[in-house]
């Protein structure tokens, strides 16, 4: 059971804190131009954050209690390969589809 006061304190502060994180640079530096070295690094924000987010989720999924699961690793690879061809929907279908098919097949192994 989650305590009511604890929940509301956490939710309000988390909402506020998350907003301040999101607002940080956009709010403070909005109308100023950033130096070149910063722009150079910021070009890599997406490719620097997303793989770091994905890798642990694929290697040590919470659903299996953190043990590596070959079906999820293969499904992630399938999503990646289709994603490289530029299709978001294709990548999502390939990823989830591969996982479902492999999970179904693994019953018979």
């Amino acid at each position, binding site marked *: 059971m989650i305590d009511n006061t604890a929940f509301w304190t956490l939710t309000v502060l988390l909402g506020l804190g998350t907003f301040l994180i999101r607002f940080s640079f956009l709010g403070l530096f909005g109308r100023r131009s950033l130096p070149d070295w910063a722009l150079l690094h910021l070009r890599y924000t997406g490719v*620097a954050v997303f793989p770091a987010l994905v890798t642990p989720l694929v290697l040590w999924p919470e*659903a299996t209690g953190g043990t590596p699961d070959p079906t999820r690793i293969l499904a992630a690879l399938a999503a990646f390969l289709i994603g490289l061809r530029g299709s978001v929907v294709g990548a999502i279908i390939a990823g989830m589809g591969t996982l479902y098919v492999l999970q179904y097949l693994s019953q018979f192994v």
Partner: protein
Amino acid sequence: MTTTAMTRAQAFWRGYLDCAPFILIVVPYSMLFGVVARDAGLDVLQTMSMSVLVIAGASQFTALALLQDQAPVFIALLAALAVNLRMAMYSAALVPHVGHARLGTRVLMSYLMVDQAFAVAVKTYEEQPGMSPAAKVAYYFGCMVLICPFWYGCTLLGALLGRAIPESYALDFAVPVCFIALTAPLLRSLPHVFAALISSLAAIAFAWLPWSLGLIVAALIAMTAGAQAELWLRRRQESRS
């Protein structure tokens, strides 16, 4: 697609369409949050308040799990905020594109800043350098106006349906699949590929850090790696010519 002046309305609807595929992810993910939150003992109002005030799925799951484990509020808060720290990097990366907007607009853009909108918007801005500043802002809102109602609505649906959704759907896996779908199109140059590789390896190397700080460390290392790779390639080209 031509880069000749896109009107604001055109940019808005392009953003709307470009973000549409991510509905496939937002629907199951927000429903899952609704289900898990009700399961943890929150009522519908509490569940919805969290989704509306925070709009950041990963941190909501983190906060909920820690509250359920009876962790002190302060610890749960720090852990959940650490998960969201990556958005400070998004915020910085958006400055050169939409930083010119009025303060009120920037406040609204900040509230709406989620992974999908950030990734889709920045990719388009870089592919279309001819886009006007006003069109960039309109495009960003186009992305979010589509995602946001689904986020709220499907959290509510999940909260109301509860355990009617069986676990065998492995909905948790929708999250990594989403980020893979976001990453793949970003790998458009050698330094980008290099940065992604370093990011992945560094995430493994720093997985032991508490409170998802491994993510932040890995991201900073990978950004540096990408930037240095770009500089190195540039120098090599210059010395050749």
